């Protein structure tokens, strides 16, 4: 058993590149040298806009995407370059939940069999499996009778509960949640978020929580990692990061969330960024954010900033807001 707060997963200088075939050639640096830790029993959130490399990071961790370079340690053991066999053994410790519960379930298979599938692969006996499936249904708040149903007889929220139950079947220590509530109705979202919070308390689970919904992230996460074009631009405790974001991208991201409060929204100072995300095929040479940054200075076009601590308590990669001298 890992002690609460001790490091469960440690990612160092992780790179996942995709070579592009065809006349143009080149390489997509989907994840380009990121580092972070997930402490036991905590929630670490990965945020950032579409294409910044959140899912690729997740796939690297669960072994769905080959790692180009860098290290991933789980409970001190290197897992970045394991073969298929050893990867499968690791499935008892790390599981993933995807965004779309409908795509994740076999439409012809009874719910109970879907939940019990990982147990079959690990060689559980039939009666043990039945017992465990009952426990799991109870854990995620579904009636036992649902074991006999097929997915089409369930709502989206109920399907996501089934997917979570299946991910928990082997009692993993780390759950990777890739946009687990994005496909759900607003009134169902809060049910699933509550369930995730309860399960964490009850089972001491660690979460890597991927979401583009920053209000949800602020509510659930202990630590937050903000990604831009495959790199980390700011990271820190959720409190500090939302209270006093330092990187201009984090600030723009937070200020772009419309608050569900018309009066507050009207009086709010908003930062509206110009332009789109640059293509990961031709990222800028200096700071990845240079093309859209409202406060850039001359050197930003050539010097790539590294993460440096800032007085507000986070770490930011910005030549202006977190100059390297502060670190010394």
């Amino acid at each position, binding site marked *: 058993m890992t002690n609460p707060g001790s490091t469960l997963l440690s990612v160092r200088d992780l790179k996942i590149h995709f070579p592009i075939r065809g006349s143009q050639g080149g390489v997509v640096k989907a994840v380009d040298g990121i580092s972070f830790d997930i402490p036991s029993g905590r929630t670490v959130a990965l945020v950032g806009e579409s294409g910044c490399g959140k899912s690729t990071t997740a796939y690297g961790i669960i072994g769905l995407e080959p790692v180009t370079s860098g290290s991933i340690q789980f409970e001190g053991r290197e897992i970045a370059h394991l073969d298929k066999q050893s990867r499968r053994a690791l499935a008892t410790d790390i599981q993933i939940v995807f965004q779309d519960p409908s795509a994740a379930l076999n439409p012809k298979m009874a719910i109970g069999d879907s939940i019990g599938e990982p147990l079959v692969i690990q060689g559980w006996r039939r009666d043990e499996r039945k017992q465990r499936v009952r426990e799991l249904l109870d854990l995620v708040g579904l009636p036992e009778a649902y074991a006999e149903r097929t997915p089409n007889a369930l709502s989206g929220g109920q399907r996501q509960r089934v997917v979570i139950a299946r991910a928990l079947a082997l009692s993993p220590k780390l759950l990777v949640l890739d946009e687990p509530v994005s496909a759900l*109705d607003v*009134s169902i979202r*809060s049910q699933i978020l509550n369930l995730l919070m309860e399960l964490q308390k009850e089972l001491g689970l660690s979460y890597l929580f991927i979401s583009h919904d920053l209000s949800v992230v602020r*509510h659930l996460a202990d630590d937050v990692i903000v990604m831009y074009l495959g790199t980390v631009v700011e990271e820190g405790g959720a409190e500090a990061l939302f209270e006093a974001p330092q990187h201009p991208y984090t600030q723009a991201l937070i200020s772009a969330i*419309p*608050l569900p409060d*018309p009066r507050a929204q009207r009086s709010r100072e*908003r930062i509206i960024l110009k332009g789109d*995300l640059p293509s990961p095929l031709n990222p800028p040479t200096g700071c990845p954010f240079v093309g859209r940054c409202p406060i850039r200075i001359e050197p930003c076009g050539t010097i790539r900033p590294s993460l440096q601590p800032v007085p507000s308590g986070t770490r930011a990669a910005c030549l202006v807001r977190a100059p390297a001298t502060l670190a010394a």
Partner: protein
Amino acid sequence: MMTETAQRDETPVLAIKDLRIQIGGLDVVDGVSLRADRGRILAVVGESGCGKSLTALSILRLLPKAARIAEGRIELEGTDLAHLPEKDLEDIRGNQASIIFQEPIASLNPLMRVGAQVEEALRLHRGLSHAEAQREALAMLVSVGIPDPQRRARQYPFELSGGMCQRVMIAAALICRPRLLIADEPTTALDVTIQAQILDLMKRLRDEVGTSIIIITHDMGVVAEMADDVAVMYGGRVVERGPVDTIFAAPAHPYTHLLLATVPRLDGHRKSALRTIEGIVPGVDQWPKGCRFRSRCPLATDVCARRPSLDPVDATGHAAACWHKDRLREIA
């Protein structure tokens, strides 16, 4: 500056009256009335399947084959579109009223240069020459914030990002300066920083052109950001409507109240249990009789088996359809 009441007495740009839409004999939209006033933004909000898109599509008679308008009037500046011949509708679409959708890439013609797609409505409705249409289209692309418009106009949709395609859609929708713009989840598929740009653009155009906008969304944040007026839908009906500040500060319908309470807030207490709404949104064939929120409502009683009408709460246009508005405190 006009006062609130003065504005409301003016003839609305769009008035939907008792609209009923049927699919396979079921009333998927059931007695919806809405109005959009000049220079104002109406947000229609509700969860998946509540009938937002069907209502929006019906305005310009773009409903899917399976659906039909069974009853009601759709008055665009006095003309009833619900009963207009198809060829008259063609004069209206893209001219007096336009619609944009959630997936900009899917709604643009993949084989046509984006510049030409923006020009199309001008040539069709205004009979402009090629050169004139091109000049106006370029000016429009500039005003919706497309960088390097000369080059972009010659490109195809696949060469543009999602945010840029949505801007092209908006440019095409607004090129004839329509009185009404219907936007069905225009930013749902976009990133938040791009969403902020697009919402900002829509507000600016409303201010400059005076277009009345109906924005459809399930995001209460977008409602708060954009709306002057709000209509909340559930189960194919409008359950509450009113000025935006009232809807957020003093909702009168249990569904609106709960919907607002379930979303985590940026200023909320972290890690606290979130408010939930019991049960699920029932399918079209499973809506309860009477009040359709009855199967999930914490205040439901026997009287709710009869349909509540959308009654005024006060004189500002705030109205809610609930038998127990006075008991709302009990779930607060």
